[in-house]
């Protein structure tokens, strides 16, 4: 054996395109992948019948569709239709070149059918069997291929990862220690969740390591650990490029089958229409009769022997290239040089028709050349001590290497709604989990709608603009189902019938795969189950509260709050943040929040006050989901805008304490600021249930400067409740 290793990884993924109604064009994506990629790869594994050290990643949507009787039966019908078309073609007296290829297809489709039926129509059984024989290793992907860097919460990423692993385990009988990150998209933090979920390795593009900090000593010649201990195996672009690149790669050879020329487009409509979509849409049959030929539109017929000859040449060339590459790095030890080559499985067979046979022959050549193949799992068993830990920043294997494909002007409109669904799920799970079996089922269904919506395929398809309408409709449909079910949950309108309907629309994942508590946060658990229930509270907005009180007003606030608390009221006091004092403290029934301005360095008083008011309103919005307020009591002009706005939206009475006014502090004042404060003070007089004014203020005189009503009254003694019978 020569020093160094080669590791091949194939990732099989399609979006979940199973539809109950017949003749959906998207379902043909599954048939094409089975006929051209999945079964041909299985043929190679079956032919070689020995440990190949290939790692096959199979995504949950693919697993679930392969296991679906509806998809299985339709695929058999599809094969029969293909055999019928081939028979018709052969009866039409085609040219010798065409007849040769048609006979090739006839044998091939017969073989596809035999293989498919041999595995009882469920190819998961085939992959599982070969894995259990030790021929291949298997991992899976997150539930629906959501793009991790653009998720918002730990919970959403965790739900994608865990339900993906659960689904895989249900079909394959074991939990893999590796996972395929959708689009090889890494983002700092996803490694923490992967590690917590039991995942020990994944795959990234090579620039993830080339740009890591610190730069890894071995470059891309060895995997690295992320900060949270997940091994990242880098795609070797030089070696991978030999295969996938249309410029320097093998698949573009003139003798290989041409992807873009299909028999459906070479035949008259009258002749072919019974094999086409009933609504008169022409689509690829899969019978491609031509070879690439060259850089020309005039394509010659496919010659199977020539293609097979090239497969042999290219497999040998690949082994030689790999041998030279490994020899060039033969000096690397601890660990030895590793070439990782991860690919979309569909590249082999679907895009490059001869690809699966190429892979089979490469496996044989590598044995002959003495090149050792290895799975990432085996590599880690041998060399886990030799890997360096580095920081890896966000990156993907997509166009330009980052997020350009998944966030751009064509697909950005989806993200807002996805993030809303994430935060709603966190809230709904906190509020409703465990209420009843029906509610728990609804929560699982909501998670199912979310994961189906978050699939990276929709953004990817919208970016490419082919079948964009389908992707946009699918996204909208999942968002609508989410909205309707969540509304039914809130309105207590759930029923088994309703949930059955929601599930049947897209029967993806079993309920046992989906774990509600992936969306639960420990803090929400405390708030919803352990926190003492509280009576309706009074919201107090005050410019100062405890600490070094500057003026009379601060003392007044403290006295009133203490007196109300002594009477048994619950109070929430919101006051500006002060250096040295805690942002939150609680004394019995009094909660004190010292609120940071949205910006600490504003120069102008009015703007500081505005930033404070905005911060109050935002905080109250966070609190009202749990805390019920029955009244608002604000002190001084500086809290008026927030107090007025909140009193209105919460529909609670507003109490105002104004120990002084701008016109009493500053009787001869004038100018912009004076006028602005005067207007704000004036505005509260109309809204407040009662305005308590300083004892030294003459209400008559006040009336000469402000539009006062009969709701203005001198301050009461702090011991007397200002709220009367109304609260």
């Amino acid at each position: 054996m020569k020093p160094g290793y080669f590791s091949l990884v194939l990732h099989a993924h399609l979006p979940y395109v199973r539809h109950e109604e017949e003749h959906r064009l998207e379902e043909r994506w599954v048939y094409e992948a089975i006929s051209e990629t999945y079964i041909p790869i299985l043929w190679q594994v079956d032919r070689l019948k020995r440990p190949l050290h290939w790692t096959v990643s199979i995504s949950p949507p693919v697993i679930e569709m392969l296991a679906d009787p509806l998809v299985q039966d339709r695929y058999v019908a599809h094969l029969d239709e293909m055999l019928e078309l081939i028979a018709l073609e052969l009866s039409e007296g085609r040219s010798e070149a065409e007849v040769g290829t048609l006979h090739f297809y006839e044998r091939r489709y017969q073989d596809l059918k035999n293989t498919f039926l041999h595995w009882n129509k469920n190819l998961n059984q085939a992959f599982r069997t070969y894995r259990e024989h030790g021929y291949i290793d298997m991992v899976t992907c997150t539930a629906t291929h959501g793009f991790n860097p653009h998720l918002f919460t730990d919970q959403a990423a965790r739900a994608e990862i865990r339900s993906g692993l659960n689904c895989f385990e249900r079909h394959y009988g074991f939990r893999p220690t590796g996972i395929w990150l959708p689009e090889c998209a890494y983002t700092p933090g996803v490694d923490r969740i992967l590690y917590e979920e039991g995942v020990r390795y994944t795959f990234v593009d090579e620039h993830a390591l080339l740009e890591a900090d610190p730069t890894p000593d071995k470059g891309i010649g060895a995997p690295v650990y992320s900060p949270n201990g997940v091994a990242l195996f880098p795609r070797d672009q030089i070696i991978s490029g030999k295969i996938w690149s249309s410029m320097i790669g093998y698949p573009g050879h003139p003798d290989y089958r041409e992807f873009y020329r299909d028999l459906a487009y070479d035949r008259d409509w009258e002749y072919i229409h019974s094999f086409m979509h009933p609504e008169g849409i022409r689509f690829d049959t899969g019978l491609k009769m031509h070879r690439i030929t060259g850089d020309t539109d005039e394509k010659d017929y496919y010659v199977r022997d020539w293609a097979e000859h090239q497969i042999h040449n290219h497999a040998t060339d690949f082994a030689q290239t790999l041998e030279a590459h490994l020899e060039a790095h033969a000096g690397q030890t601890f660990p030895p040089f590793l070439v990782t080559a991860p690919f979309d499985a569909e590249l082999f067979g679907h895009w490059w028709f001869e690809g699966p046979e190429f892979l089979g022959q490469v496996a044989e050549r590598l044995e002959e050349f003495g090149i050792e193949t290895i799975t990432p799992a085996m590599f880690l068993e041998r060399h886990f001590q030799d890997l360096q830990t580095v920081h890896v920043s966000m990156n993907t294997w997509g166009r330009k290497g980052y997020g350009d494909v998944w966030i751009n002007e064509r697909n950005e409109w989806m993200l807002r709604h996805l993030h809303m669904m994430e935060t709603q799920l966190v809230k709904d799970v906190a509020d409703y989990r465990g209420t009843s079996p029906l509610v728990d089922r609804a929560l699982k269904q909501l998670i199912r709608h979310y994961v189906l919506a978050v699939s990276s395929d929709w953004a990817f398809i919208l970016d490419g603009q082919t079948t964009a309408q389908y992707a946009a409709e699918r996204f909208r449909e999942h968002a609508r189902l989410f909205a309707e079910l969540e509304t039914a949950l809130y309105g207590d309108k759930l029923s088994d019938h309703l949930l059955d309907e929601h599930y049947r629309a897209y029967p993806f994942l079993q309920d046992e795969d989906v774990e509600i508590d992936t969306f639960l946060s420990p803090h929400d658990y405390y708030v919803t189950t352990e926190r003492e229930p509280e009576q309706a509270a009074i919201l107090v907005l005050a410019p100062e509260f405890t600490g070094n009180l500057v003026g009379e007003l601060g003392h007044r606030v403290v006295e009133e709050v203490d007196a109300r608390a002594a009477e048994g009221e619950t109070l929430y006091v919101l006051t500006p943040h002060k250096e040295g004092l805690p942002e939150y403290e609680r004394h019995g029934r009094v909660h004190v929040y010292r609120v940071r301005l949205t910006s600490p360095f504003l120069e102008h008083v009015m703007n500081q006050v505005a930033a404070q008011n905005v911060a109050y309103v935002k905080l109250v919005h966070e609190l009202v989901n749990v805390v019920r307020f029955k009244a608002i009591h604000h002190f001084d002009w500086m809290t008026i805008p927030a107090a007025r706005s909140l009193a209105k939206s919460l529909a609670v009475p507003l109490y105002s304490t104004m120990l002084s006014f701008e016109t009493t502090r500053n009787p001869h004042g004038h100018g912009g600021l004076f006028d602005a404060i005067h207007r704000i003070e004036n505005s509260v007089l109309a809204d407040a249930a009662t305005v308590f004014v300083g004892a030294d203020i003459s209400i008559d005189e006040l009336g000469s400067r402000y539009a006062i009503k009969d709701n203005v009254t001198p301050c009461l003694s702090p011991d007397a409740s200002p709220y009367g019978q109304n609260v």
Partner: protein
Amino acid sequence: MEEKIVSLKQQGLTLKQIAEQLDMPIGKVQYAWRKWRAQHGEVTTAAAAPKRKTEGKKSMKPKPKATPATSVKQVASTLQHDASKQSPLLDHAPDGFWKLPDRYDADMMHAVVQSPNAVYVFWEVSDDVKETLAMQFMRPWEDLPKAFRILDVTLLDYTSGHANRSYSFELPEMTNSWFVRPLDPNTTYVFEFGIRTMEGEFLPIVASMPLDTPRAEPAGVGRFAEPVRRWQYGEVESPELLDTLPKYAAYRFVR
């Protein structure tokens, strides 16, 4: 008008449908409905629950509920913002069919990486915040000039208010997302949406979490090397590294 709203609501229409039927802003309908509910809340409670004679004096107060079956329910039953009891994702086009909401009545800003030089940012501002600012500056929200600020907070604590550098620019009215570019790779940014005040100051309303742009070239031994080492060798209790997927708590400010 209030009677009409209440009557339609009791017929099962959503607030949105009522607003459309009466050709009123939804805010007004919401307000009227909440106000009516607040005023009549105790009537419905009293009708639903068995009456207790001993409560005479305090009968104006909403009564604390008798111990509910589970505390989970308790929280659900005190949700004030659920007045209309519907998903925020539920919205209808004029033709009556569901559509994605144009906006959410919330205050938030999220930023995601597009590339080492570009970040996509979107945000929402609630009606209450808009109204608070309108009351503060005595001008309708639509008339307040909108602006955007980029803060470079690399190796700084954003909450301290300090930034290595900042840049702000005006935004067109009705904007709720932006592709921010060009930015520098390997830099920690915070983005803010806000208004430009009369004095020309930028007043932020919503801000994103700090976000690192990816590196775009070999780092050598860069600013992450030492924090990674400290975390790897257990010298710190939690990593001094940004985590783009933090645990979210719906009630994070409820203590």
